[in-house]
């Protein structure tokens, strides 16, 4: 179980040169790798490239492999790569419980089993008994916890986090960081966290910085 990137570059539509210098990395299962860079350097594009959401017009070079299998050949929905953004993006027409239930793989069969999994996820997020609540009625920190649980319930083979704490208050930030790190460790999957915040990167086992293309 490892996420591997080799000589990956991304160029914006019509741009003469890539956004950043070629990047190579290997993230083992259970490891969280931090990637830092000033804004505008293509951190989000890197996440989009791995997850399969790169907008049309962007050009991607290099190899992206998960457990030795080439991800670039697969559409986003079949890559098994979860994402978590700055905003929780909970679906507003569904309750918290249903937001979690939809993430459960269809292989978890039977209404009772699925419901039990949702209840357990809510307990682990410290949100026991809130299944019927609407996303809008939750605080920002609570929504972020639901977003993480939702991403993990889908049983991804890797998780990508794009500035996951940037929308939170500084006090909440450290608490949420601890919550996320603990759950990532427990999930035993490779995780990549991009952030422009030094303390986020310091919390990762290992971190590297995107370098500008000119520095090659």
């Amino acid at each position: 179980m490892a996420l591997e990137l080799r000589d990956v570059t991304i160029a914006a539509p019509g741009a003469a040169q890539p956004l950043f210098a070629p990047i190579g990395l290997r993230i083992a299962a259970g490891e969280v790798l931090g990637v830092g860079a000033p804004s505008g350097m293509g951190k989000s594009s890197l996440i989009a490239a791995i997850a399969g959401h790169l907008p049309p017009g962007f050009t991607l070079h290099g190899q992206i492999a998960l457990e030795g299998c080439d991800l670039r050949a697969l559409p986003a929905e079949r890559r098994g790569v979860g994402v978590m953004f700055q905003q929780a993006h909970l679906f507003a027409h569904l309750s918290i419980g249903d937001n979690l239930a939809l993430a459960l793989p269809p292989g978890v069969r039977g209404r009772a089993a699925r419901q039990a999994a949702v209840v357990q996820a809510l307990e682990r997020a410290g949100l026991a008994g809130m299944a019927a609540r609407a996303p809008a009625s939750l605080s920002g920190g609570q929504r972020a916890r639901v977003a993480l649980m939702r991403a993990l319930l889908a049983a991804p083979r890797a998780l990508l986090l794009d500035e996951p704490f940037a929308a939170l208050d500084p006090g909440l930030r450290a608490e949420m960081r601890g919550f996320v790190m603990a759950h990532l460790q427990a999930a035993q999957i490779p995780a990549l966290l991009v952030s422009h915040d030094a303390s986020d990167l310091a919390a990762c086992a290992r971190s590297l910085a995107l370098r500008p293309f000119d520095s090659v």
Partner: protein
Amino acid sequence: MGGAHRAVTGLRVALLLLIGAPVGLGAGLTALAALGWQPGLGGDLSLAGFAQALALPGIGRSLWLTLLTGLGATLIALALSVPLSGWLIGRAGAARVLAPLLAVPHAALALGLAFLLAPSGWIARLLAMPLGWSVPPAWPLPGDPWGGALIVGLVLKEVPFLLLVTLAAAAPRDIAAEMAVGRSLGYAPGRVWARLIWPQLYPALRLPLFITLSFALSVVDMALILGPSHPPTLVVQILRLLMAPDLALRVPASALALVLLGLIAGVVALWIGAERGVASLGRHMVRAGRRGRAWPGCAAAGAALGAGLPLLALAGLALWSVAGRWTFPQLWPEGPSLARWGRVDWSVLGTTLGLGVVVTALALALAVAVLEAEDRARRPLRIGALIVLPLLLPQIGFLQGLTSGFLVLGLPPGPGAVIWAELLFVFPYVLLALAGPWRALDPAHLRAAAGLGAGPWRVLGRIKLPLLQRPLMAAAAIGFAVSAAQYLAVLLPGAGRVAVLATEAVTLSSGADRRLAAVYGLLLALLPLLGFAAALVVPDWQARDRRGAGDGA
């Protein structure tokens, strides 16, 4: 500020008189006529009109056909609009194609479709070769007794409207991020759209859906061209009674108009009731977590069909308008022959154009007044219900009452009454089209101008209106298209004395001269498109002038 508040109050009263009063008067007089009392004729109030109406032969079948075509077309259009809007959402410029497609008047599209579906139309000719037909098939199209052709016509007209509304509702959202989240959870893009994103847009689609539903249940021009005739849909039955020489028949006609109103209210109530059930079913499916699969090409094929069929219908109109002899299995006519173009009464085009320009100018002035008054009073005018009312009520439910009311008040049927009636339907669309861009104006620009000592009138004339040139042109194009498409709003308040392209096209559609009908249908289709072309071209052209002057300096 006191002046601004007085102006707002004045404007509200003016709108109430201009828009609310005619609708209220029309609906009230229709209700009275249904009960047996007509202005100028008098009569005793009774329910005899209803009894007479419901005893008409085939009336039950008419009710059923109305329900089948109106509700059926709306449900099909809605079902098609969900995947199509998901396909269009990532495609820039989609809205630019949709607006002109939407601008093709119903009567023109219906006429083109009628010629396409007819036993001697292109579809039959295409089938004739492989199937070895030498005479046109005996299929009952258009005007099949089941309302199938009418449903197709309505769907083609409603889908672009629903798509435009859906895209507008999606515009402020971060759809790309929601799509990324959904797909990363393993859902195919179409399913993310249909189950996870589209339901969040639905609240914004409700009112447009109710307008669509009411329209589909009460459409006149399309039903006359494509719908069944023995018996026809309810609204066509009402129109037949209204156009009869015997004025006493207006009593059962008005009674049927109230029945139609009740039918629409019932269908809307049913719809609202069904919403909960459908939402709960949807949540049930979401909980089960089935991921769906991609159906590449399906939405693209649907879009091609949805855009292709109207284009084919219009191309057919163009061909018929210059066709010489065109014997049956031939795919192309002999010709070209311009004989029918020589028989066009060009004053009809002039009337359509003139009405469109006057009504659009009035609607635009009124919309600017409303938005500017809101700016100055710094609060919304709260005229939503007033604007929506003429769109939500069936036209036949108040236009005849309005015509007789106008007459009593000293405005006889004719161009004046038609202009006022058209304004009821044009103003809402013009206001809606202009409101978004107007409210999005950068307040910094306006504050800067005010800081330089410019008064509100100067800011309006020198800053706002020039900045809004493009949206103003676009709103005008929409207003003009809505005006050109009006059929009943010309027929009833014009009392047959005002002839426009839409009324002529509908009249000729049942006549023997298909080529002349095609000429009018084509002119009707092209007129709004010219308006849209002007809205696109004129600002560009003026901007080029300004740029040129700047470069030269």
